[in-house]
């Protein structure tokens, strides 16, 4: 990793994060919430994103994960609580403002243009040019070189940057999108379910690059509904349920089993076990005891 190339883009925080004081958070939500009319989609959510840390946000469908990322990425505004970037309260009105603050979002399906070469995709919308206006043209050499270097820094080695990005696997595409966000000065990277549509192996590839981005000093918000993936890379875990924060724990405070139970909703699993026992062919004896499930989940789930 060479600092000359990336330093001008501000992608890397030169100083180690001041986490000891507890104020090194780039992005912080304090009791933030969002209402759409009379519907309260999100309420009382507190979250901190530190440099070089992965904050995982877990939750089932409809738990409020999307609302949360939309607030942080500037697509929506919060209606209650506080949203701070670098300890200053902010109210983003467009994604552009969030980007200018170094908050980049990689959407699962909005990452790339499949038929275009990898290097063109890498620089799309922020192309490097040379020459005065009437003959201002793409600086192809420089773009290819930079894209190659950046991808290699993230550990992505491609034979041919001219190949259409659509010929890459889903995981590789996601990785190019992450590398791109890192290069263009992201300090906080929001990954919206990057592993949702991927196979086991591809998910592993993406998780490696999440770790790579973290090691380059970025704060990562990793949205997922897969506790196993979250536990692989996460430093802090927040579980959302029905628009509120059900759990906020750091890695030391929680085991994968507890996390899985929180995520799945222990009481709901118990109910599901009961239902499954009505179905022939399911061996409910082998499933965990009802008591284990509900205790682990804190007995909060609805039945």
């Amino acid at each position, binding site marked *: 990793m060479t600092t000359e190339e990336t330093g001008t883009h501000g992608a890397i925080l030169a100083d180690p994060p001041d986490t000891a004081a507890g104020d090194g958070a780039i992005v912080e939500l304090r009791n933030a919430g969002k209402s759409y009319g009379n519907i309260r989609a999100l309420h009382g959510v507190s979250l901190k994103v530190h440099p070089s840390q992965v904050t995982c946000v877990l939750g089932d469908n409809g738990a409020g994960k999307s609302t949360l990322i939309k607030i942080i990425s500037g697509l929506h505004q919060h209606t209650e609580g506080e949203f701070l970037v670098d300890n200053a309260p902010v109210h983003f009105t467009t994604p552009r403002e969030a980007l200018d603050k170094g908050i980049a979002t990689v959407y699962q399906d*909005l990452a790339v*243009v499949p038929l275009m070469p990898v290097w063109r995709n890498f620089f*799309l919308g922020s*192309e490097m040019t040379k020459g005065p206006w009437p003959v201002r*043209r793409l600086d192809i050499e420089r773009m290819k070189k930079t894209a190659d270097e950046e991808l290699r820094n993230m550990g992505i080695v491609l034979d041919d940057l001219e190949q259409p990005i659509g010929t890459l696997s889903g995981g590789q595409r996601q990785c190019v999108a992450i590398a791109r966000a890192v290069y263009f000065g992201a300090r906080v990277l929001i990954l919206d379910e990057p592993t949702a549509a991927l196979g086991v192996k591809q998910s592993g590839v993406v998780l490696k690059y999440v770790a790579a981005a973290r090691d380059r000093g970025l704060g990562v918000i990793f949205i997922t509904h897969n506790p196993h993936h979250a536990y692989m890379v996460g430093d802090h875990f927040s579980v959302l349920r029905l628009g509120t924060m059900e759990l906020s724990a750091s890695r030391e405070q929680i085991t994968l089993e507890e996390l899985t139970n929180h995520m799945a909703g222990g009481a709901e699993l118990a109910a599901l076990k009961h239902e499954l026992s009505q179905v022939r062919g399911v061996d409910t004896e082998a499933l965990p005891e009802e008591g284990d499930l509900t205790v682990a989940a804190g007995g909060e789930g609805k039945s």
Partner: protein
Amino acid sequence: MGMTQHAEPAVTTPPAPGPGQVKDGRTAERPLALRLLARPEVGVFLGAVAVWVFFLIAAPPVREGSAMANILYQSSTIGIMALPVALLMIGGEFDLSSGVAVITSALTASMFAFQLTLNVWVGVFVALLVALGIGFLNGWLVVRTGLPSFLITLGTFLILQGVNLAVTKLVTGNVATDDISDMDGFDQAKKVFANSFEVGGVQIKITIIYWLVFAALATWVLLRTKYGNWIFAVGGNKDSARAVGVPVNFTKISLFMLVGFAAWFVGMHNLFSFNTVQSGEGVGQELIYISAAVIGGCLLTGGAGSAIGPVFGAFMFGMVQQGIVYANWNPDWFKAFLGVMLLGAVLINLWVSRTATRR
């Protein structure tokens, strides 16, 4: 749950960056011939050569230089329009009104200048505004409504077709415009739009030069500028393009306006080489332009193509159109030929790209 608690994240280090130019070694280099064949421009070039050779054999007059100049002239009038139509297609849109827009701009220039007895340049200028306006309207409607451009431009196609005829009859009482060859500025405008010069005893029409210059310019813009990058992006995946900051609406609208500009240019050429304009012409031309772009390797659904392919596509059409005449066949066969060529080209392209890109 067999997994135990880890004190540290399971994945701690990024994969080590390979030293120097390490390849991942999964793609073998394909032979040059196959790589060339995989490019649609090369396929259409071979097709154009095949058609040319066919007519060299079937129609002896084609072997003369003047015949070639004539064929190239015919190709250029198709080719100048096929270029922006191809760019628009790469940008993911479609313009059915391009054929009648040529006539609309010629009619506008002719009638505006004649009825108000102005210098023809005033008419030419007004026609440019009208043509760009039609392009803007098409593009604006497409990006505002999100409807398929096929529908929007089918609408403008029908509107323009009707307006061309009705307004011409209303103004001149005839289906054609009056002869403007004795008006102020005509000779000057003719020099710009419909000149010809002699090379080695063969009359070369200036549109051939314009055609090749525009093609070179379009190729440069497409492959070497930001705007060209945006064209591929908006045609390939417009939501992704928007998400990374490409001005999608600007790109699309400007492409429609580019078609308008070319329609104006060809319209002016028609006007100043024939002095009058038949108001019912132009219908069906739009499909020829679109076919030339498709034969030239532009993807109908957008996101891929070139500017050089449509040049060969247009040449194939011009060749067939004139070749049939030189071979003394019934010119009615032209459209049938076009259809066969279109299907053949598309099938060959499909076959070649499947064979050549197979790994």
